[in-house]
């Protein structure tokens, strides 16, 4: 139906178009993307309409000239982990492979609003990682040195300076703030805008975004994929790309192989909205808590995973309680605030907290998984490198170390130990 629409509908977003539509009673806006029906055949099918899947489709169309592409989403786009995460963007990793990749992703984020012609509300408000004891301070020194050697911006400040920059920190917390690592280029973005912006930009290049379409099986002939079966009919294709986070093991089983992944629930919550009190992102590894304030005024709070495998998109109470305790110790003034919403997403954790972006045991079936709790910051970088992988049938140099083979060769990139964080 959208194909018959008049061509003078407003598709480009700008101050001028806003002004024009203001005089036009806002009647000329084109839908941001078409809710497409699946066709019988595509050059490539991407499974998963989250940030990763939509970014992959966008870069396939834009950088690699593949436009006969479908993104299949079993629910609605951006309704999985993209809509559930705490939107922190950073590149404070330890190993050169990770730093190179995540900083590439951060750089894409820096230009993304202009690239997509869609305001992703990327706010480089800085990301603090604070230490509460002598050993934590030593780890921050090590992290700063690693980041600087990897060409990533990093600053180390003592506890007094952290307190000066974040005045609402407690004057006498149970665990004193002794130092802080600041990555100034880190920050937050609007998570829905990432999904919607990529969806709109991919759609404008001819990509079909198919919602309410669950993949139920794969057609595999002589070890090569020839199509996918879905709840909305069978689709022929020679290239299938998974981008389904916590459900990767389930789809891999349909394709006949296992993966080194365990799925966990990662929960987050927001408080009731208040006036601006916190203008940065703060992480305390000792407390297992991170916190920022959204543009709406809600405190956005996250913590560690619930420590048993789960596909239920809800968190357990003990982790939530532990999280709240950490927030109240750091910020006693938040103790009277109420949780507004609490939820969980299912994250795909690999043993070394490094993802896989590359080939699978099935020819023509590609893997983008294992992001664990940190996939949001990787969306543009992974989308770009994954698109390269799919188009050229070989990994992008930036993600070549992130292969499945590393579990056999032993060349793990152990960011769980290296960066000292869960992801």
């Amino acid at each position: 139906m959208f194909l018959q629409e008049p061509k003078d509908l407003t598709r480009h977003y700008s101050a001028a178009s806003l002004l024009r539509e203001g005089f036009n009673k806002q009647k000329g806006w084109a839908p941001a993307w078409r809710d497409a029906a699946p066709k019988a055949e595509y050059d490539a099918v991407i499974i998963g309409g989250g940030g990763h899947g939509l970014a992959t489709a966008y870069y396939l169309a834009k950088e690699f000239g593949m436009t006969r592409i479908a993104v299949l989403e079993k629910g609605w786009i951006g309704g999985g982990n993209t809509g559930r995460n705490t939107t922190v963007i950073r590149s404070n990793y330890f190993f050169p492979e990770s730093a190179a990749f995540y900083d590439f992703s951060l750089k894409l984020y820096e230009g993304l609003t202009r690239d997509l012609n869609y305001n992703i509300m990327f706010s480089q408000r800085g990301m603090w990682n604070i230490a509460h004891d002598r050993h934590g301070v030593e780890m921050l020194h090590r992290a700063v040195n690693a980041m600087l050697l990897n060409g990533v911006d990093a600053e180390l400040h003592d506890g007094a300076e952290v307190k000066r920059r974040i005045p609402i920190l407690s004057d006498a917390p149970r665990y004193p703030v002794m130092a802080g690592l600041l990555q100034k280029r880190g920050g937050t973005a609007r998570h829905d805008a990432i999904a919607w912006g990529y969806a709109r930009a991919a759609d404008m290049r001819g990509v079909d975004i198919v919602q309410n379409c669950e993949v139920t099986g794969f057609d595999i002939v002589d070890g090569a994929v020839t199509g996918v079966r879905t709840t909305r009919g069978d689709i022929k294709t020679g290239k299938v790309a998974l981008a389904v986070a916590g459900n990767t093991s389930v789809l891999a089983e349909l394709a006949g192989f296992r993966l080194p992944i365990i799925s966990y629930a990662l929960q987050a919550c927001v408080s009731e909205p208040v006036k601006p009190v916190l203008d940065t992102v703060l992480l305390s590894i000792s407390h297992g808590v991170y916190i920022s304030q959204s543009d709406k005024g809600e405190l956005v709070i996250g913590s560690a995973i619930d420590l048993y495998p789960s596909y239920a998109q809800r968190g357990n109470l003990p982790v939530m309680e532990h999280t709240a305790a950490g927030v109240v110790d750091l910020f006693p003034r938040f103790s009277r605030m109420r949780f507004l919403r609490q939820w969980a997403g299912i994250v795909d954790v690999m043993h070394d907290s490094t993802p896989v972006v590359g080939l699978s045991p099935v020819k023509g079936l590609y893997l983008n998984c294992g992001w664990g709790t940190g996939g949001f910051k990787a969306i543009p970088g992974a989308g770009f490198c994954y698109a390269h992988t799919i188009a050229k049938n070989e990994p992008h140099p930036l993600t070549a170390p992130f292969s499945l083979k590393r579990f056999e060769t032993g060349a793990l990139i152990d960011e769980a130990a290296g960066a000292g964080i869960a992801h």
Partner: protein
Amino acid sequence: MLQISCPYCGARAEIEFRCGGQAHLERPGPHDQVSDRQWAEYLFYRDNPKGVSLERWVHRFGCRQWFNVARSTLTHEILAVYGMGEQPPQLEGTKR
């Protein structure tokens, strides 16, 4: 909050326990005849089922004993608790 029935102590809250991952993994051997692929399978590859999961748990802040649990990863319902070395009960939706 889950309530888990420790075979030794009875029903206790989940904060007393720790999940130790997939149960019934067998170390391959003899060690000098195990391929890299087999080691990778043993160390890192997991069933990760959406449904019934057979897991080892330890009563960390209790008797410190290990035991097996059959639990749904979709509802978190605990379907069975059985001892180490025992075979899992026949449950609908179990993979093995």
